[in-house]
């Protein structure tokens, strides 16, 4: 069943975009503009709705002409590609989105042909299913851990590293005591929000956000 790999699901949805010469700017450009300013960090709609590991939205203008002797042809519509790797099956995932971020969904998909709006979640899910593509091959590197489990593991990894570094050569009784304190504290920490870079460190890698 190629849309699933372990407990991770893959979704590929291609929604035709409304082609209206009278719209200024055109519907595809309006989607683009909206997506350009949509936050990609913890304020992202995909951070607020549960279960998204990775998601992308792409306005696909046309197919690609690879050059003679291939035949040149063109799509009649532009399509909005929505490709996501998520924790739940289609129905559950889309309902989650519809409940958490209805305004964003409407803002984006209202430019697509036949979009019924998110208010009627049944119709919304049917609409998305109609545009779903069957994945032919789905590869996933880490395929059986959900988003919250993964976020917690990342938090743990960071905390454990600090603990080990700070407790080298400590005598056993004190080590055990401090370890149990550490574990208690770690367990009570809230799970970090999806899409965050983690706590700010001064470690410089020359990355683009510096």
């Amino acid at each position, binding site marked *: 069943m190629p849309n699933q790999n372990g407990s991770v699901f893959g979704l590929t949805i291609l929604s035709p975009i409304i082609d209206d010469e009278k719209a200024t700017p055109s519907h595809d450009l309006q989607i683009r503009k909206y997506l350009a300013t949509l936050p990609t960090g913890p304020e992202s709609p995909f951070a607020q709705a549960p279960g998204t590991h990775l998601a992308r939205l792409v306005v696909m203008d046309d197919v690609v002409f690879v050059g003679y002797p291939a035949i040149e042809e063109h799509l009649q519509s532009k399509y909005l590609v929505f490709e996501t790797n998520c924790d739940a099956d289609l129905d559950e995932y889309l309902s989650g989105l519809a409940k958490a971020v209805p305004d964003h969904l409407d803002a984006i998909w209202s430019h697509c042909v036949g979009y019924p709006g998110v208010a009627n979640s049944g119709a919304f899910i049917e609409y998305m299913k109609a545009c779903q593509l069957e994945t032919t091959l789905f590869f996933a590197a880490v395929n059986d851990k959900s988003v919250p489990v993964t976020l917690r593991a990342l938090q743990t990894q960071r905390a454990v*590293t600090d603990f080990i*570094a700070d407790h*080298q*050569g400590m005598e056993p009784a004190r080590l055990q005591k401090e370890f149990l304190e550490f574990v208690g504290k770690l367990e009570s920490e809230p799970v970090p929000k999806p899409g965050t870079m983690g706590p700010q*460190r*001064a470690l*410089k*890698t*020359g990355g683009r956000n*510096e």
Partner: protein
Amino acid sequence: MSKLNGTDIQGFVLRGYNLPFARYVFLHFEDAARARALIGRLLEIITTGQRWDHGKPQRTVNIAFTHRGLAALELPLATLLSFPVEFQQGMKSRATILGDTGINSPECWDELWRENRVHAWVAINGQSIAAIEASTASLRSLIEETAGAVEVGWQDAAAIMDAGKATTREHFGFTDGFGNPDYLGVERSTQPGQGKLMPDGTWAPLATGELLLGYADEAGELPVAPIPHILATNGTFMVYRKLHQNVATFRAYLKEHSGQYGGGEEKLAAKFIGRWRDGTPLELSPEKPDPSIVQDPHRNVNFTYGSDPEGTRCPIGAHVRRVHPRDAFGFNGRLINRRRMTRRGLTYGRPVAQNEPASDREERGVIFMALNASLSRQFEFVQQQWIEYGNDAHQGNDKDMLMGNHGGQGKFVVQGDTTATNPPFICSHLPNFVELRGGDYFFLPSITALGMIAMGLVDPR
């Protein structure tokens, strides 16, 4: 493949001279015609890659150019634009890509490198200081005669001596200079472990095109090269980096942390690099240095990491393991064959013995020079992805312990086991042991290409 013509390739490219003294003179061209005349005169004394049948010469001379140097020589625009992008930009503009930020950023470099005046690098290597001075005098009189250039700086370098003999040690006390790659067609005493790993466990030379332009590389094609072919063939690119070493900081850090480390000071130092200070590879001798291995060319670079996946002998993030992973990434080493380069570095500055006090402010370090056919695919990649970052080695953002631009942060993990002398150990709050003080990218042309440049005969096509 075709036999290499040693008389057409600059000697610096084809062999490590192992001459104990060097002076790098940096020139600026003010007038293209006069500069070309100077190059024409220099051609008469440039050392080629021809074999030395009568023993090592007293001194050697080689030359390389920055992109702005080639522009000052008025090579045609089409040719200048056909050089790889990174070479056109120069190392200073690539600082953020290379992780040369903070204390390594260009604002902190030596004045010579902060400006954009360096057009040419003339390297004099010699058996003695007298030979260097004689050569420098000849060079300066040629410059004066032709009025072909202005000297904007120079850098002396010398091997660290031990009882009058030149060693390959650097200022932290480590023996360096192992593992330069073997290439097809380059004559050299090969050692197992220098080339690329074959499926049956033997080592074969790398494709010539990993070092020299105009020859097939490991990807089965000719490397990206400037046009015309005749300008590029038998040439190569060089990265020059002046790496200041903070010897006092290093010694203090090592001393402080070996107090807590069960294996002792020498072993901890060895764990940083992956070799004991005498050069014995940790993989082959994890408990103690072993001169018999170091002196045996069949053994001192002949090892793989396949039997040490946990890093208990040689830490996963140790320097030699980072820059030459061998089989550590799987796939029979195929992912690393295009990431090798030839190093020709030399120490500079007054050496200071282990029991003498040292100051970080004193000028000392290593002039790092590496030769490769593609700066971006080879040097820049290794610098960015394997030294200032650790993902390929599964070490996340952790940097190379010795070379990394730590800024007081970061950590180095020494993987260990249950024995008391080989415990797991984390070094944190890493200072910058090494600081970048300047450098640039250079093009080392062939003898033919130098002749064309000197005569102003370069035509794009």
